[in-house]
Every structure is written in C-alpha cells, then in structure tokens.
C-alpha cells in the first residue's frame, strides 16, 4: 500500500525527515507517534503529495508520489481520506454540503451521492445534523464530519494527523472508536498522534519518530 525508501526532507537547515524507510500493507493500522517536531506531519504530507521529499522515494498504491506532477496529485488524493487536527471544514456550509464535496469533485451522480452521504453521516452519528452549518458544531462533532467527509468516497487509505488534538478525553475515545470501526471494515489507516491514550486504544502497529528518524517500529498486540 505505502512504501517509503530512504525519505529525507529538510526545511532550510532543519531536518524534518531523515532517511525514513518503512512499508504499510493493505488493511494495516499504523500509529505514527513521537513528540512535536518529530516529523509526523511532514511524513503524512509527503505521502499525500503536499510536500516533495528532498531525497528518497514514496510509493503509494504503486505510484511514486515524489515524481508525480502537480496535476496528478488531486487524483492521488481521491484514493485516500485525509483528516487533520484543525478540522478544515467549510464553516458557512452545512454538514451535508461539506460531506458531499468529494463526491461532487469526482462527478458522482446526485442521487448516489445523497445516499452515500447519508450512509456515512449515519455511521458517524451525525445524520440528524445534515442541514446544520458546520460553524456552529462542537469540536467533536466537527471532527466527526471531517471523518465522514474523508470516508465518503470509500478510500482504501485513511490518513489522520492528530485527529484528537483539539478534543477532550471523552470525545477522543469516541473518535478513536470511529477510526477502529473504519479500520475493521478494511480501510488502511495511518494515524499520527502524540496522545498515548489514542495509541493504546487504537491497538495498531506503532512507528515512533524522533528528530525525523524512525526509532522503533512495534507490531500491534495480537
């Protein structure tokens, strides 16, 4: 699914990623941990093509992301769901309008899109708020909408960067449970967090980064 070969990335003279190599197989759940500035976000960014690595190669579903042209990046992103810490929702649009956007972009027909949106909103427990503007929702609800938007086009890979960073402990449990359910349905997950509660609850393979290097790579408890 994802293979990284000696990936390095520098910002001016700071090392963000230093010779990172590992692979993620289809259906795996990988938790990327490490302190702030360890390179977790940069690693996710090079995987979804927002950053170009200075060295190394990244294969995502057999496509070399490092060599993809700008015009090909949107098509790569359509195969994956992306959830970020700061929600990234269109605050003036309704829950429905936010979640249906990836389907509009991909040209899915209106009726089918409606059905799929309602299905994912039900799955994240937000179907009753489809007409509410996202700007008035709580942080936990906004993050659930982000997750709904990320999975509405049934991606085979879900990338999440500190998805519980803005949430309290109870909401964190709720969101992690949502990720566990998505993973149980066969979606590959790469989740970056420095929250130990999330690491324990997700019970996946843990890749620990420090100063841009992979320091440990621990398989999930069976």
């Amino acid at each position, binding site marked *: 699914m994802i293979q990284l070969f000696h990936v390095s990335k520098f910002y001016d003279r700071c090392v963000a990623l230093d010779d990172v190599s590992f692979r993620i197989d289809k259906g795996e759940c990988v938790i990327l941990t490490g302190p702030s500035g360890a390179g977790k976000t940069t690693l996710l960014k090079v995987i*979804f*093509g*927002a950053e*170009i690595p200075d060295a190394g190669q990244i294969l995502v579903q057999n496509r070399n992301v490092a060599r993809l042209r*700008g*015009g090909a*990046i*949107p*098509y790569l*992103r*359509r195969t994956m769901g*992306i959830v*970020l810490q700061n929600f*990234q*929702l*269109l605050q003036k649009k309704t829950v429905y309008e936010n979640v249906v*956007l*990836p389907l*509009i*972009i*991909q*040209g899915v027909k*209106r009726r089918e899109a409606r059905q799929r949106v309602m299905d994912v909103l039900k799955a994240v427990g937000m179907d009753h708020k489809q007409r509410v503007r996202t700007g008035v929702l709580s942080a936990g609800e906004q993050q659930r909408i982000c997750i709904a*938007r990320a999975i509405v086009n049934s991606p085979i890979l879900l990338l999440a960067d500190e998805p519980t960073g803005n949430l309290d402990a109870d909401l964190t449990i709720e969101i992690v449970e949502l990720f566990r359910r998505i993973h149980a349905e066969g979606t590959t997950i790469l989740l970056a967090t420095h929250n130990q509660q999330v690491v324990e609850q997700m019970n996946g393979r843990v890749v620990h980064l420090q100063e841009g290097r992979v320091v440990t790579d621990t398989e999930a408890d069976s």
Partner: protein
Amino acid sequence: MRPLYLLREAMHNLRVNRGNVLIGIVTTAFTLVCFGVFVLLYLNLKNVTGTLQSDIEVIVYLEPGASEQVVSLVQKRLDTEPAAVTSTFVSKEQALQEFSEQFPEESLLLEGMDANPLPASVVVNLSPRFLDTESLSAFAERLKQLPGVTHVAYSQDWVDTLTLVVSYFELGAVVIGLILAMATVTIIANTIRLSLHTRKEEIEILRLIGATGVFIAIPYVIEGTILGAMGGGLSLALLKGVFEFFRLELNASGWFVGVEHILPIFPRQVSFLLVMTGMLLGCGSSVLSVFGLMKARN
C-alpha cells in the same frame, strides 16, 4: 463535474464579494464607455465619409460650342470606363438654370452678361470601387486627353482629408482600446484575486479532498466573465442613453433636414461588441488570476 454546482459557487462568490464586484462592474463599464465612444466616433465618421464619397461626381467640362459629336464621343468613351456608372450631359442652359436655383442671390451677377458664361459638361457618377485617390486621378487624367474636354473637376481633396482623419481614428481606437483593455484586465483581475484571497482556506480544503486546479478555478472564471458582461451591459446602457439624447437634440436642431442619413448611427454590432468585449476581458483577466491555481501542488 457538476456545471450547476460550479455556477452556484460563482454566484455565491459574486454575492459574498458584492462590494468589490460592484466596483469592478462600474470601473469596467466606464472603461468600456470610453472605448465605446471612440468606436462610435470612428464608425460615424466612417459612415459620413462613405456617404459623402458615394456622392462624389466627376464633372467633365466641354469647350465652348462643343458639337453633339464631341458630346457623343465623350459619352461613348465613358461607357467603356469601368469607373463610370452613369453619365449625364448638362447643357449650358441647364447649367445656368441649376446655378440660378442653387445660388439665387449670385445669379444676378450673370444677368448683366451678354452670353451664358457657363460651360456644358458631362456629370459622371462613379462606381464605389474607384473612389480612391489614385483611381480617381487616373480616371480624370484619361478624360482630360479626350478632344473637346477643357477641364475635369472632382471634389476629392476634403474627402481625402476626412479619410485620413478616419484612419487616425482607426489607429487611435486600436491604441486606446488596448490601453483600456489592459486597465479593465487589471481591475477585474484584482477583484478576482481579492475573491481568491478571501477564500484561501476554502481552496486549501478543496485541494485536500482532491479537487483539481481547473475545478477550483472555474467558478472564479465564471465570476470574472459575469462581472465583465455586467460591466459591458452597463456601459451599453450608458452609451445608448447618451447617444439617444444626443441624436434627439440633433434632430430637434433641424440642421440635418434632407440629409438625415448622415445623422449619428449606433450599429447593433456595437452593442454586441461592448458586451462581448466585457465578457472576454472578464474571462481573460480571471484566467490570468487563477492561473497559479492550475499549477499549484499544495
């Protein structure tokens, strides 16, 4: 891609940025009005020149006492000339009568003379294809060589001057049109850039979920095109209003009685040209503004 969604987004952009959009429309309208005024001046001058040119006659003056044979020879020669459409013989008596009719006060001067001093002539109407200076002078030169012809006259000089003025206007319209087009492009491009700036976060989100640069850019291009078209429409309304007022005033003045055909014209093509120019400028400037979006990676 859903065209309706993209159109709705464009309309939403226009609503959200209505202040900037209004400024863009008004400024576009004023620049297009300036351009329109120039185009109208040019077209009207060209119309007047064309009308006057089509009235140009060549008068072939015959020597005093020219025989019927001479007249017949001149007319036969004119029949073979492709430049001559019709030719009419004007006798000395007819010339005197016409002079008296046209200049009743001056005709008194002729009354004291023993004989009619006006010569007989042949008036030639010309084909529009031969109205240029070179053809005319060559034609006149050929007629001068005919036996019995004393002088060949045609009022070309001032029409030439008018043609020259029109050609300067033509050049001026192109130069001013280009300058105003650049100004309009800058104004609309800035409006679109502001629109892009206010929706920076939204664009980031769209990129994140796999929107192509073209998908993101289309609503802004539609926005610019609508803005340009509205500017063009407003300029048309302003120009047409001022034009009709001007035309009514001229009509009321009575200066053009008998020559109404040279009154100012506002061709339908000008209306089309203004709106289309507005649309094209709007579309072009928004494409310029969103060009970076098409190439951006993040």
